[in-house]
């Protein structure tokens, strides 16, 4: 073979480099109209010492074609919901409708400036108000703010509301004695982090062998008299409904505390049961979970907070409220002539948690989701999600250890206990699942279950694919006994193998540097 011809054995895409390594001076991916005003000498309008002096060195110079190919190529290295089951427990990876995307891109919303006057943005405010109404109905909690940008942000907001309420109820001095937030050992890490941010000391509640909150331990902790509240996920992170929820709320309330519910698992409850009816005082929802706004590879999210009437005065400002109808009614401009307003006059509010009104684009998508489903569809989605999880629980129970007997709700936890005898652990099973064409489940969470595999199929998956998933998992279990190395060295089908994360954390390289330009790939990617 002619040695001058470099043969590529695989397509270029496995070797797509960083954009900075493709950059070449003089390439351009943009076009702008010519400047149409008289140009001033820059030094005359902005003094030299305030001007940039590095000529933005290092920033890429590439063409539009380069950019399109670059991102299209690297995108193919991602797994995504549109490709198939994405069974991450506690993450609710359900179908992201294109219709919702279209709604969010309607020019009247997408081009609307957040500081436009209220009278010029009535449509936008109405969307917020309408979504608030629906979420209040779904949770049974009437006070609501859509300002928090994600679940953890909603948690912080909710816990600050609890603190502000207790300050107002007991007075600052007595309130200062109530600085304990109770959190079950199965909770998400964001719960204690959010409680800490609000100035609380975290005490951990044990779970029972059945996987539920230990009531005796709860009573014992509440007896100390310093409890401000409880942060509880329900169904909990083991996928089990806390059937003693009313008793739990009673114990906390009797001790002078409030109950915060982490709504991460609302996909098991919408249309079936309402946190407000259970005795919960405040909850956050994840619009990017239960209400299908796209997760986007790590956000944006949206974490509305819903609370009782009692807690409503403490919600962030501004509130979006509806006021009486206007005189347009007589002019025949539609029957609904309500006026929506921003209400800043809330002296007990915890304050603003984000500039403007929250992740508005996510609110549009969530409202479109709710209206597309209607009351029937919302309940149907919950039923289908729970049924799918139960189907997986049933299908895997002969091959994997299921640590809790109780039937799960929308997600189910298994462990690697049996496979571990052959040296095959949860991480290996997860990686091998990739070879079967599935995204792995959530692993090693909740922390209280050794070798946890938390599986949440959501309603967005059909029976054939559930069967394929179950078959893949069973096959991996067989491999663990018959050919453990196959599983231990997985994945075998991806562009790269398992990465050395420990080395990456020891000497972190967090950005590209020009001096590291190295046009020779360290190794040619295999096919």
């Amino acid at each position, binding site marked *: 073979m002619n040695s001058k011809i470099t043969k590529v054995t695989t397509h270029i895409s496995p070797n797509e480099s960083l954009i900075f390594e493709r950059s070449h001076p003089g390439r351009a991916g943009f076009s702008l109209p010519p400047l149409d005003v008289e140009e001033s000498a820059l030094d005359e309008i902005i003094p030299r010492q305030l001007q940039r002096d590095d000529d933005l060195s290092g920033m890429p110079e590439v063409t539009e074609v380069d950019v399109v190919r670059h991102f299209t190529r690297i995108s193919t290295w991602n797994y995504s919901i549109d490709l198939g089951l994405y069974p991450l427990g506690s993450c609710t990876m359900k179908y992201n409708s294109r219709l919702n995307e279209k709604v969010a891109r309607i020019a009247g919303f997408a081009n609307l400036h957040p500081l436009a006057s209220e009278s010029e943005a009535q449509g936008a405010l109405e969307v917020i108000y309408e979504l608030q109404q629906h979420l209040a109905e779904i949770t049974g909690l009437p006070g609501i703010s859509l300002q928090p940008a994600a679940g953890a942000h909603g948690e912080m907001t909710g816990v600050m509301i609890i603190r502000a309420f207790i300050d107002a109820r007991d007075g600052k001095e007595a309130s200062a004695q109530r600085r304990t937030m109770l959190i079950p050992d199965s909770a998400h890490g964001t719960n204690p982090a959010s409680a800490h941010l609000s100035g609380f000391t*975290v005490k951990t509640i044990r779970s029972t062998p059945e996987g539920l909150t230990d009531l005796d331990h709860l009573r014992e902790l509440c007896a100390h008299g310093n409890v401000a509240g409880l942060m509880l996920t329900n169904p909990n992170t083991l996928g089990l409904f806390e059937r003693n*929820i009313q008793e739990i709320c009673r114990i906390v309330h009797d001790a002078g505390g409030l109950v915060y519910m982490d709504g991460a698992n609302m996909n098991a409850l919408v249309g079936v*049961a309402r946190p407000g009816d259970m005795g919960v005082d405040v909850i956050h929802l994840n619009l990017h979970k239960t209400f299908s706004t796209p997760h986007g590879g790590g956000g944006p999210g949206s974490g509305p907070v819903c609370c009782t009437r009692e807690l409503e005065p403490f919600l962030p400002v501004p509130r979006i409220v509806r006021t009486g109808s206007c005189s347009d009614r007589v002019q025949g401009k539609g029957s609904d002539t309500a006026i929506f307003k921003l209400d800043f006059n809330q002296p007990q509010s915890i304050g603003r948690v984000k500039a403007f009104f929250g992740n508005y684009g996510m609110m549009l998508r969530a409202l479109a989701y709710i209206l597309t489903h209607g*009351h029937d*569809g919302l309940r149907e989605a919950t039923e289908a999600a729970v049924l799918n999880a139960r189907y997986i629980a049933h299908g895997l129970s002969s091959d994997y250890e299921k640590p809790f007997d109780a039937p799960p709700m929308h997600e189910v936890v298994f462990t690697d206990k049996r496979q571990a005898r052959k040296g095959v652990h949860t991480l290996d099973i997860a990686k091998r699942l990739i070879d079967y064409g599935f995204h792995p489940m959530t692993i090693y969470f909740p922390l209280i279950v050794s070798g946890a595999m938390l599986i949440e199929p959501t309603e967005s998956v059909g*029976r054939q694919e559930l069967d394929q998933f179950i078959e893949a998992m069973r096959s991996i279990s067989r491999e663990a006994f018959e050919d453990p190395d196959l599983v231990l060295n997985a994945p075998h089908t991806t562009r790269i193998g398992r990465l050395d*994360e420990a080395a990456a954390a020891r000497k972190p390289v967090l*950005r590209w540097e020009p001096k590291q330009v190295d046009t020779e790939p360290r190794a040619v990617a295999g096919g």
Partner: protein
Amino acid sequence: MRYIPNSPDERAEMLRQIGVASIENLFDSIPEDLRLRQDLKVPAALSELELLAKFEQTAARNPAASRISFLGGGAYAHYSPTIVDHLTSRSEFFTAYTPYQPEISQGTLQAIFEFQTLVCQLTGMEIANASMYDGSTALAEAVLMAERITKRSKVIVSSAVHPQYLEVAHTYVQHAGIELRESLYCTETGTTLPESLAAIDDQTAAIVVQSPNFFGCIEDLKALGDKAHAQGALLIVAVTEAMSFGLLRSPGACGADIVVAEGQSFGVPLSYGGPYVGLFATRDKYARQIPGRLVGEAYDKQGRRGYVLTLATREQHIRRERATSNICTNEGLIALAATVYLETMGRRGVQQVASQCTQKAHYAAREIAKIEGFTLPFSAPFFDEFVVRAPIDASTLLDRLAREKAIDGGIALSRFDSSRPNDFLVCVTETNSREQIDALVEGLKQVSTTKSPRH
């Protein structure tokens, strides 16, 4: 329901297979008296056709969205190349989760690594994280980080910082034992003067300034940084108009220790205030104190380069209440949009957009200042926003300009500060043509000299 793959028949068959008598029995673990016995009071399902019609109708009641606009103040109308929305709309990006499984998330991870690099280049800093919710929360997190680093509890914030950013900072730190003190800006220059920072002492963790500040004025970051550093305090710089990075000396080059910014200017739609993306950058030595996710380079056994989430021991899922922040989900897809934007525009494009913004804004300022009775109250240099003082009440003026001329001419500062009734903030970007600017000038002239036709 068309989003649910299994038909009712298939669901019935699945129930039989798992030995559950009815759908209702799936919920047996929920006490009987807690189960909803009636339908949610949510309307019946809408078809695609009905839904779109409803939202189109609602959107039509946002006339501000189609106006000629000179609104800024933390959200900016810039041109976004067509490919930004197309590439971020790829399923592989927008329907993916946080990249916890690196072998099948390299697309997202590499894009974030490029994002972190771009943020470093723009801000002049050494490291940057994978994003924060927005500029305002990024600033609040920077204040908390400064307290962790210095173990000092006083933070001095310039009152020329965006008022909503100040409010968010107050909310975040109210239980953290941090005392936030506002220092006044100079009412002649419109900037924060080093001599106004008299409260700075050896208990001060940081001083916080925004540049260009809320009034559009460019701060002397170098002088402010020297003042902070002399007391062992950090300089935190916030930037709401990220396009200014294309022209102004980077905060890093001026001695900033933490730089936060709102990245909306980089190809992200206004969308009534969100989702946007917070940029967060700092010095190498603070890598273990930074909030949020970080992506780092890693290699597999064959020596192939890839990217992973790294330094996770700072984060809530490992460290729980001792984490550097409670943040989990951030703004991944918006960070991707900013990355596509910055790579498409590139080094020269960002410079040219920044240059056009400043040239057009200065043209507008010159023309407005020529109108009888209109002045520019601040003397400091500005980038693409500036304050105008009208001869009459600014909010009345702007309301009439919108109603009579269909122009959103700016933001009345009385919304934030009642002592500035006649002042308003005008923002001009590359998207405003000369024709639009001239229409604004003409409109201000007419409206300020005539009586409202309605009143």
